């Protein structure tokens, strides 16, 4: 890695991050969850105020962003609420980043909030105005069909699917804010209750409440600043009978290519640590392949062999990922940003990836209805 004559970064840095605990917290409201995240991010950044805020939430009621921020004395500034399915938090980050990069605002808060336990009794189903939602396609079933396709093609085995769950639950044992970690065996994962064939309970993310935040500002070379190397966002192209890959593959591949180009990073193999969208085990397998971190059909083997585990060549989801940290939709993207920020500063404790210099965050979400995902955001960050 080069040190002198620094040419990396695009002039924007993450100055501070913060999160709430992740888990079922129906007894806490979004004000309390957001306060945990914002207070920590402001303290981390050493600031008292921001010039604007972007807030990501999927199921939050109208006006929730302003109401949450008002409770902590953040009023009067421009506040924009964004919804981009599971990528809502990283969309808030991408927009906050662009606002700083272009000089529109000096210091910007990106906040993600979600309370799932009060919105859903179980799995998320797209709304009734969506063809798939009206047809009863709960989201686990969508990922299950991708997994079934992988099994059919011999691109993964059931044991490799389970290995993703084993890995990420083990990672989460070292994350005190994770919803639940655990030392599971492949057999335990496979014998847990079937949700949608072939995905079992331990292969599905839990219902979570939480908040996460980042304070962005111009890069000043500060000792704890994490530089933004590049950010990209896309919505999905049509996904249909002509698609060569399972749902969600191509949007990740294309967004990652944009982000790598923006960052001036030649290959994703130059990345030291990744937080990616693993709402279901098959999601991490497809994503690591789409990112180009592993060869097509190599995602399952990478998890099973430990290559994407802590201690492996390219650790993926050291936080425990969505599977184990939890998946409060709007908060997830900024929880990923927080984890990578801690990793690049060397502050990740027992789950630290030694010497991590470049980190990648990827979030992708949405339903189908002839779309390869509603949105994907990929961001590349670099250590101070």
């Amino acid at each position, binding site marked *: 890695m080069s040190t002198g004559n620094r040419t990396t970064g695009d002039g924007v840095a993450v100055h501070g991050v913060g999160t709430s605990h992740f888990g079922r917290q129906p007894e806490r409201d979004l004000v309390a969850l957001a306060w945990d995240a914002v207070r920590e991010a402001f303290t981390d950044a050493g600031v008292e105020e921001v010039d604007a805020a972007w807030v990501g939430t999927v199921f939050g009621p109208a006006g929730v962003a302003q109401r949450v921020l008002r409770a902590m004395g953040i009023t009067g500034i421009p506040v924009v609420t964004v919804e981009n399915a599971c990528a809502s938090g990283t969309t808030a980050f991408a927009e906050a980043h662009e606002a700083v990069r272009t000089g529109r605002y000096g210091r910007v808060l990106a906040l993600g909030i979600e309370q799932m336990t009060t919105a859903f009794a*179980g799995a998320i*189903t797209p709304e009734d*105005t969506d063809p798939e939602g009206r047809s009863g396609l709960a989201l686990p079933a969508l990922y299950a*069909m991708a997994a079934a396709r992988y099994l059919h093609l011999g691109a993964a085995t059931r044991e490799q699917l389970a290995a993703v769950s084993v890995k990420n639950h083990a990672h989460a044992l070292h994350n005190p804010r994770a919803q639940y970690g655990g030392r599971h065996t492949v057999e335990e994962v496979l014998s847990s209750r079937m949700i949608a064939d072939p995905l079992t309970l331990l292969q599905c993310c839990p219902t979570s409440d939480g908040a996460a935040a980042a304070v962005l500002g111009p890069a000043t070379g500060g000792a704890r600043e994490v530089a933004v190397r590049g950010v990209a966002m896309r919505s999905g192209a049509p996904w*249909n009978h002509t698609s060569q890959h399972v749902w969600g593959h191509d949007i990740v591949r294309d967004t990652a290519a944009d982000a790598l180009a923006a960052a001036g990073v030649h290959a994703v193999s130059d990345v030291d640590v990744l937080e990616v969208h693993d709402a279901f085990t098959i999601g991490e397998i497809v994503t690591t392949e789409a990112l180009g971190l592993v060869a097509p059909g190599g995602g399952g083997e990478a998890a099973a062999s430990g290559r994407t585990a802590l201690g492996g060549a390219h650790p993926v989801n050291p936080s425990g990922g969505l599977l184990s940290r939890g998946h409060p939709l709007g908060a997830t993207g900024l929880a990923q940003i927080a984890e990578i920020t801690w990793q690049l500063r060397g502050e990740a404790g027992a789950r630290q990836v030694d010497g991590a210099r470049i980190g990648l965050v990827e979030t992708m979400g949405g339903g189908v209805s*002839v779309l390869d995902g509603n949105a994907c955001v990929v961001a590349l960050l670099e250590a101070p």
Partner: protein
Amino acid sequence: MAVVDHLEDSVPHPITVDPRPQVERGPDGLRRVTGRRCRSCGEVAAYTWPRCPSCRDAVEQASFGPDGTVWSATVVRIPVPGRTPPYALAYVDLDDGPRVLAHVRAPVDAATATAPAIGSRVRLAACSADGDIQVEVLA
């Protein structure tokens, strides 16, 4: 009276447009999905959307089916609002037509429920009472 009418109008209407692909039974007794084909690139869709989702060019009405091939399938075993698990779902590539999400009509109980094998040949069946597209596996 105007005030009363106004108050009555303030009650939300239920959603009356069904977003699911529409299935029609032809004179030959077989069922087909009514959708659109792009006049420019030939892309097909199971919906009556005004433009081609691939190239944005003009579309014309087309019908697809009655048969197709299972791209992938699963059995949903968790409660979903308004539905009783387990039930089988499949993405079906209709012959020369689009990919549609369909329920697989079969005797399903928790003990024996299985999804049709990928590659299975299926045929559009009558929609469910609630309007879901259904297919049955061809022998």
